[in-house]
């Protein structure tokens, strides 16, 4: 089932196009990455989907139709610009925010207590937000976005400002939610995290869709189709010359990178090599999401 669908959506502010004809869909139970450089339109896209702003054209469907009041209650949102009531007591604020998602007061209190305990923040429940450290505030904000057990969780830069331990905790939570069949939309700059966590991604640049698909698929697509090989015996290098269909060989420290000719797969080359010599290690080289990100953005700005 599509949890979310964008169809030819455009939005402009004061004659400046922020989102240009973007289409994509998010499936239930996946972690969907929303990537792109600063100013690419990620936050605008999230606000469009939350019906905070209206699109100029195109159609947005959430849970199969236009976003309803009930639909909003099933979404959890962690905005990039973090905001909490500074002078309100932690517990009161969490309960209020959950009540705005139609959670009854009692249930909101119980949920808040359980979550505060699991994030080791329970002892601070009577404090005001301004008394907490920045990192704790970040965790509280994350907590407030999941307090009402949403089916769709939208996290805008959830790891910014977190220490490694907290990052690990939040990451574990995100995976846990995915395994429970919930859907997570993750907007981030941190390509390493996106590569590890996301099932599929959408990359925006200047308001346009530049990449869209599974992480594995995109990496393969952008792969240079080369093979890293480490031989047991250095002398085996000559063997390469005996294999047909090799375009180029690049020597690195202790290993070689083999580029086959177009139309010949790295698998065929590998089979030939194994038949002829002993191989310690081999690796199909795929570019990281980070490399693809930089390459895509740079090639776009070079146009």
């Amino acid at each position, binding site marked *: 089932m599509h949890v979310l669908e964008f169809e030819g959506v455009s939005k402009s502010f004061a004659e400046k196009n922020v989102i240009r004809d973007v289409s994509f869909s998010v499936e239930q139970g996946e972690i969907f990455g929303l990537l792109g450089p600063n100013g690419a339109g990620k936050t605008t896209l999230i*606000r469009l989907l*939350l019906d*905070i*702003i209206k699109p100029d054209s195109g159609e947005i469907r959430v849970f199969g139709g236009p976003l309803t*009041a009930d639909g*909003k*209650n099933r*979404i959890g*949102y962690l*905005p990039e*610009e*973090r*905001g*909490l*009531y*500074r002078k*309100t007591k932690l517990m009161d604020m969490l309960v*209020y*925010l959950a*009540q*705005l*998602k*139609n959670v009854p007061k009692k249930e909101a209190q119980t949920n808040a207590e359980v979550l505060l305990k699991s994030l080791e923040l329970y002892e601070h429940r009577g404090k005001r937000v301004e008394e907490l450290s920045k990192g704790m505030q970040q965790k509280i904000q994350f907590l*407030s*976005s999941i307090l009402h057990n949403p089916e769709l969780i939208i996290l805008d830069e959830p790891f910014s400002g977190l220490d490694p331990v907290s990052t690990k905790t939040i990451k574990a939570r995100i995976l846990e939610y995915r395994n429970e069949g919930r859907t997570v939309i993750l907007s981030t700059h941190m390509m390493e995290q996106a590569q590890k966590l996301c099932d599929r991604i959408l990359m925006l640049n200047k308001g346009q869709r530049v990449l869209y698909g599974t992480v594995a698929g995109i990496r393969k697509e952008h792969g240079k189709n080369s093979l890293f090989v480490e031989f047991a015996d250095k002398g085996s290098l000559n063997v390469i010359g005996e294999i047909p269909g090799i375009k180029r060989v690049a020597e690195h420290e202790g290993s070689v990178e083999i580029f086959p000719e177009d139309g010949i797969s790295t698998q065929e080359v590998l089979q030939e090599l194994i038949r002829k010599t002993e191989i310690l290690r081999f690796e199909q080289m795929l570019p990281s999401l980070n490399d693809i990100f930089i390459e895509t953005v740079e090639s776009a700005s070079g146009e």
Partner: protein
Amino acid sequence: MSKFSGKTFIVARHEFLKTILRKEFLFMTFVFPLFIAAITIIPSLLSSTTAAEDQRVGYIDMTGSFDFPKSLTSEGFSAGPMEAKTSIIEFVRYEESSEARKALESGQISSYLIVPENFIKTGEIELYASEKGASVPDFELSAELSNIAIDSLLKDNVDEAVLQRVKDPVNLKLYNIGDNGESSEQGMAEILADFGLPFITAFLLFFSIFSASGYLLRGVAEEKENRIMEVLLSSATPVELLTGKIMGLGTVGLLQIAVWLSAIILAGGYALPVKIEPMLLFLALIYFLLGFLFFSSMMAGIGAVTGSLQESQQVAGIFTFAAAFPLIFMQLIITKPDSPLVVFLSLFPFTSSVTMLSRIGASEVPFYQVAASLFILFVSIHAVIIISSRLFRVYLLMYGKRPGVKEIMRSIREAGR
């Protein structure tokens, strides 16, 4: 889009509870009237206790023509309607000032008077009092001495009636010719009611409207400044937030005005000879509600457009100044309630609630004018709410440079499409 969904009530309850627990609110609501009450009541309590002692006053009459009574009863001055405290002044005659001085030093008398020989020419009487110890307040004694002087000089020369007239020459009575041609006597209580009450109600109305809509302005600007607005908007619509806030803070304002009015009624029975008519109370509530709706929705729009709390308060100040106009023209409103400027002020939505209420307190206002002012206010509220909720939608999440007037006008038009 239902305007009064459950979320509206959640927002309303949150805003209500948050505000009534603020220190500023508790201070303004409870300490402020106590403070005012203290100012009005304490002086009258003080003055009624000081002059209550009986006194002995010595005198030396060098003209030989003064006819001091043995004692006289002096009415103490009191501001309240309580029974005026009286004190008895006993006069003791001395021949020499040295005798009188001795008596003063020994405490037999609290002060003594010397009527000099040339009194007829100068009108001077000297009063000597010891530095310590209470003496008769001289302004009281002066009035009594005038009467004694008039008695002594004229007693056998004129009629008793003339004597009384000289003591109390003119007694001005004020008559108002009403619309129906009847004249009515205006007593002190009515003058107080006519001038004091409109001013007090107008003042209270102004204060409660602006403290309540001020909370709203501050709330919106804070939520925008600390970026929680985006979270709220992902849960509720701008209209739900706006109506919830206005309902919650409107209830706060009603609570405040109720506390103040009951304080006035309680104090009124005690210190002010004023009756408050139920009709005026009812209209005060109506005008509070409408005035509050008008200004609070405007404040919400201002809070949405401006970038920070400080900036929003500056912009809001301009409108508050416009609304304070009736307080500046209060004298005109009370003395000439039917002049064109006052009629205009009582119809103009920025000033109508405060002006109209003062006019109703001061004089009879034609019914059609009250109805017209309510109608205009009602239509304006509708317009302001529409404009504000559009601004809410467009600007609530925009930060940085405040948009210019032209840009705002365009967004109001565009958001309506």
